[in-house]
């Protein structure tokens, strides 16, 4: 029980450290797969319960939306097969195979997204992005490799200044990059041609949950009539339906440590915000290029 949980968390943390390039959700799924392999449960139901508990444990370590959605999708994917074998080890083998397959599919998803999106970046474009997203980085890499010339404006993204990491990565690709204040988004909007952001989670309405400041950027780009593109892998689709900013569950808004330590959450700064689908032009996912209203369709297919 507890030892397993500690082992789990340790494994997860090592995974995150070893592969910084990989999304936290992917690391979580790898951890879950490892957990499945080591699990000593006797029944299928017990196995599933243990996995669910493991997912909950992982979300308490890293409270991003993607970890919880990725975990749930993983669970569904591996159980979405006939598990009619009389022998439990047989069933486990099937589930592990499916798990490996799932992992392989999602590690390819970032490339699929990049392939779809880089064609939307024209030569000479000025792009605005928010904070640090590895998917957006991959898209820009691909566009640069396709010999396109473009400039990138990155927001600093307080309070953790992750935008600076993005700027460094882009400088390594020899892409001209300018770091701007979060408050300067409205100022810069008239100069840019398009806005590309990543997402931590894509919700049922077609809206996204992303680092705080994304909603402002979306509202500004709508006011200036600039296209607002979102790039996200399909394992980030989650069965939430927030009506407004208040409606996003607290467990996603704040970091896991803050949730545990703080006495009054109202005094803490939320780390994410919700962007409604009316402000998003297109979503680039490994399932294809979707409009926000098509996301619900895809979600129904994924989850039902």
């Amino acid at each position, binding site marked *: 029980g507890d030892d397993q949980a500690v082992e789990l968390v340790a494994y997860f943390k090592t995974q995150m450290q070893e592969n910084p390039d990989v999304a936290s959700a992917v690391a979580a799924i790898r951890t879950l797969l490892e957990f499945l392999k080591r699990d000593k449960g006797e029944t299928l139901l017990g196995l599933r319960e243990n996995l669910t508990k493991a997912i909950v444990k992982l979300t308490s370590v890293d409270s991003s939306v993607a970890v919880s959605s990725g975990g749930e999708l993983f669970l569904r994917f591996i159980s979405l097969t006939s598990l009619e074998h009389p022998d439990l080890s047989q069933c486990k083998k099937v589930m592990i195979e499916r798990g490996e397959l799932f992992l392989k599919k999602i590690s390819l998803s970032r490339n699929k997204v990049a392939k779809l999106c880089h064609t939307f970046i024209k030569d000479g474009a000025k792009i605005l992005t928010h904070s640090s997203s590895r998917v957006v980085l991959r898209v820009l890499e691909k566009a640069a490799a396709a010999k396109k010339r473009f400039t990138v404006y990155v927001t600093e993204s307080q309070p953790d200044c992750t935008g600076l990491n993005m700027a460094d990565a882009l400088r390594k690709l020899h892409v001209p990059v300018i770091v701007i204040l979060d408050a300067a988004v409205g100022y810069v909007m008239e100069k840019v041609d398009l806005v590309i952001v990543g997402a931590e989670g894509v919700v049922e309405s077609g809206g996204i949950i992303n680092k705080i400041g994304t909603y402002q950027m979306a509202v500004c780009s709508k006011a200036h009539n600039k296209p607002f593109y979102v790039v996200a892998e399909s394992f980030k689709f989650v069965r939430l*339906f927030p009506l407004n900013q208040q409606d996003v569950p607290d467990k996603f808004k704040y970091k896991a440590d803050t949730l545990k330590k703080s006495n009054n959450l109202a005094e803490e700064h939320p780390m994410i915000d919700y962007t409604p689908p009316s402000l998003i032009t297109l979503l680039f996912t490994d399932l294809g290029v979707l409009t926000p209203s098509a996301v619900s369709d895809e979600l129904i297919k994924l989850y039902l």
Partner: protein
Amino acid sequence: MAEDDGAASQRLNSGAGVIDGESEDKANISRFKAEGRELSKEEKQRLRKEKKQHKKSKKDDQGKTEEIKGKEKKSTMTSDRQQAQTNLPKAVPALNSFETPVTGDKAPSGKSKAEIRAERRARQEADRASKQVQKGESSVTAAVSGPSKTKAIPSEPQPVVKRLPEHIQVDDPAVLKKLAKKLERQQIPLRKDYGNKVSLFSHLHQYSRKAPLTQQMSIPSTVIHPSIVRLGLQYSQGIIAGSNSRCIALLHAFKQVIRDYSTPQNEEMSRDLVNKLKPYISFLNQCRPLSASMGNAIKFIKKEISNIPSNSREEEAKVQLHESIDKYIEVKIHLAAKAISKYAIEKISDGDVILVYGCSSLVNYILCDAYEKKRKFRVIVVDSRPRLEGRESLRRLVRKGIHCTYVLITAISYILPEVSKVFLGAHALLANGYVMSRVGTSQIALLAKAFNVPVLVCCETYKFCERVQTDSFVSNELDDPDDLIVTKRGETPLENWLEVSHLHLLNLVYDVTPPDFVDLVITDLGMIPCTSVPVVLRVKNVDQ
């Protein structure tokens, strides 16, 4: 099929032979009608035959042929005609279907069936071709305007052609004539329209509550089952109102009908019972236009009945039908309400101020359930004339102990800044994502959008319909205009509104809300955005 045609031709021969007695029979028939007795089969066929003769001679004179649809229905004469009587959207025009059996049967017996059919088909093709030519020249008569409007490509065979339902073509005299004939055949009285109608809505029926349909029928009526008569009266007088209640009452009445039904000789229950239900449905439609929920329930019942295996005994079949109807009510309405409530409760947080409009059984259930689960919220009930349904909603919520405020719809811009969420019920959800609900709903949704208040619509999946509508004019319902007359301080200004020719009173029942104003739809399948309704319809059709 062969025996039936043979039997039909036998009956025809017997009819044709008795020429002297024909006039006597005519008198008999009109007497029977006056007494309200159900005409026997032979009498019905004699009537039909006379009409056909009359029409054929008229046609030969005019040299005009009516359009005959491509799909020939090869069934018995009775079921053919009765199928044609119903839902105009799909059926061949009743008048036209008469032609095919008669002309076929009248051919000399020397020709084989196949030859007769081939002749018939060739004649129809020739008719259709000549029709196309004539259509180009002259203006088309109203009787065929329905099908011809939708037939854009002349040469292609007819796929499913959707025609305008007759209840929204009231300003078209030919359609009215057809309706009158159909009701006459089913022995249902035609309800007269009442009062001057606003010109924008002149294509809809407007009835008066003071003239119920049963005044024109003899009581007890043997044509319509008494529980259906009672149901029709309850609908037209407004005793049963509300989408769910109407549907449940309808299903209970049909259960009674099935209980009292006995299969006649030489008939199969699955086909005969469906035919028996058709006049009842027309009667109910005359009392009050069918709602979307009732329409779906009727489709379900018809499917259940026609799926009865032919070898099952009558008792077993009846029990099975009763069970499936009970299951439908239980699953689609009661369990769906529980599922919707489970999802809706996630959206109700402590300290919420919830606005509701009118009286929706589902929304009331959700709020009472949330109150039981110890959520702290208060409710603002918005109401509007002339129905004042909000009072019933208020009664139910206050009885539960929920803190309520009551306003009229004119005050919503005053009260909306306090509101955190709006919960609305729906009468139907259309295939393009539009929400059809009580009149006033779209106004509330519009204002809520302007005040940035989230609007949640709660609707069970059995109310989803395949219709597409973008405005509230095309298909609506006009209630009794006398409801708008109010007496204040002993004065009734609108008392004599009928005498003032340029005064029209309008009492609309439904309106249509576009999906941009609705943030979330809660159904028993989960929470979906308004634009995903066609996805649900698709998933549902796959399931069934």
